[in-house]
């Protein structure tokens, strides 16, 4: 997946917006920080979420971290492959390791996310801390 076409949150989720649906995963930075992922707790399809609500949990050996809904909407699909292969989040975070899809009810919420250039600057800021 071309990273230039994605939007990014401060919590290190990536979002692909297409046809009123947002596909959501975590970035390479996030998977690296998490370490070896051993379990992904996926939301139920149909679950309604507000922007910023915890949608899924990623468990690594070290820690658990939330994946937040980047927009307000309803879960339309989850990546069932993660059930048997949670390590896809580490191996291919922008592709096979996607986590869930949700409907976009307020397109304006996407404007609050970062594009690749801004996200890369954001990462530099974190590294400089």
């Amino acid at each position, binding site marked *: 997946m071309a990273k230039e076409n994605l939007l990014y949150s401060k919590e290190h989720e990536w979002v692909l917006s297409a046809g009123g649906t947002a596909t959501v995963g975590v970035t390479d930075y996030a998977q690296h920080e998490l*370490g070896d992922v051993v*379990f992904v707790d996926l939301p139920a399809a149909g679950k309604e979420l507000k922007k910023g609500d915890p949608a899924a949990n990623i468990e690594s*050996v070290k820690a658990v971290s939330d994946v937040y809904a980047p927009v307000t909407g309803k879960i339309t699909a989850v990546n069932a492959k993660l059930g048997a292969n949670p390590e896809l989040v580490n191996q291919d975070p922008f592709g096979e390791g996607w986590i869930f899809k949700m409907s976009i009810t307020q397109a304006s919420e996407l404007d609050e996310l970062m594009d690749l250039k801004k996200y890369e600057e954001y990462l530099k800021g974190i590294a400089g801390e």
Partner: protein
Amino acid sequence: MKKTKINEAHYILKGKMVEFCGWDLPVQYSGLNTEHMAVRTTGGIFDVSHMGEVWFRGREALKAVQHIISNDAAKLQPGRIQYAGLLTESGCFVDDLLVYMMKENEYLLVVNAANIDKDFQWIKKHTARFDVQVENRSEEYSQIAVQGPIAEKLVQEFTDIDLKPMGYYHFAQGRVQDIDAILSRTGYTGEDGFEIYFKSDAAAASKLFLDLADKGAKYDALPAGLGARDTLRLEAKMALYGNDIDDSHTVLEADLGWILKLKKEEPFIGQEALARQKEAGIRRKLVGFELVDKGIARHGYPITVQGRGFAAVTSGTFAPFLKRSIGLAYLPLENAAVGSEFQIGIREKTVTAKVVETPFYKRNK
């Protein structure tokens, strides 16, 4: 933040550094799982210099040690080590520690990093009436642990001490790469291995660590961080102070009856309370569990037994070698038998766990 004398080596080896008990230490280098598996199959090299060293010297050194620990140090000979509890009056833990008998009238107590100051104050207060000098020399000593099946071969390349005949929980003094060291066959991983205590400047300490990592590479051994140290010790069901043992659970409740010697000659702190508890019987016990459902039960997650809330998980992780979700918890004695099921709250979900035999992992000897 405090730095161990090995600190520079961690940066050279690109360790991912975190603050741990006020120390700047690596949580991992190449990755927690990789390091964990290396220790189980080949070897791992750990900087554990943050641990504390308290020395007892004097005519009544043994009496003083005996007064404050649960185990029977009179059974020790020079060159032998014992695991013991430093106990409160109620038989709970101030800390857990290792006692090294250096020679007659001289003992070394190795204590947890987080507890050094607390322990030292406690020890001074409770040994004041004995003819003994107690010294906290934690700042002077570095400590490196080399753990795993190849540990003996690797460490032997660095020392003139003959390691082969050295038994578990024995130690010797000699040279390790031209540094005077105490070298013991001990560890916190469930594998064979050694712990090397030594005094040196930072350059020599970092060099020893780097050389061990370098020579270890030919055996596929890896430098390993605090993350793997925690998952390794939990697979082997070794207690972590602050999680599994603390000042509100007794030695008997912690299922560590084997370090309690109620009949030893010298009376000790906690003895009366524990004798009473042994007589009356315990009501709760630390057990190992495995999750039946998916998820990871971590420290602090709430437990319910037959619908009633009961304490919390003390330690829990996904076990990298066993590939199962495991943990430790105090359960009511009547629900603590192997096979008993109970529930753990993992955020908004409730999952089922069952009590299993421990240790979860036991190496083939």
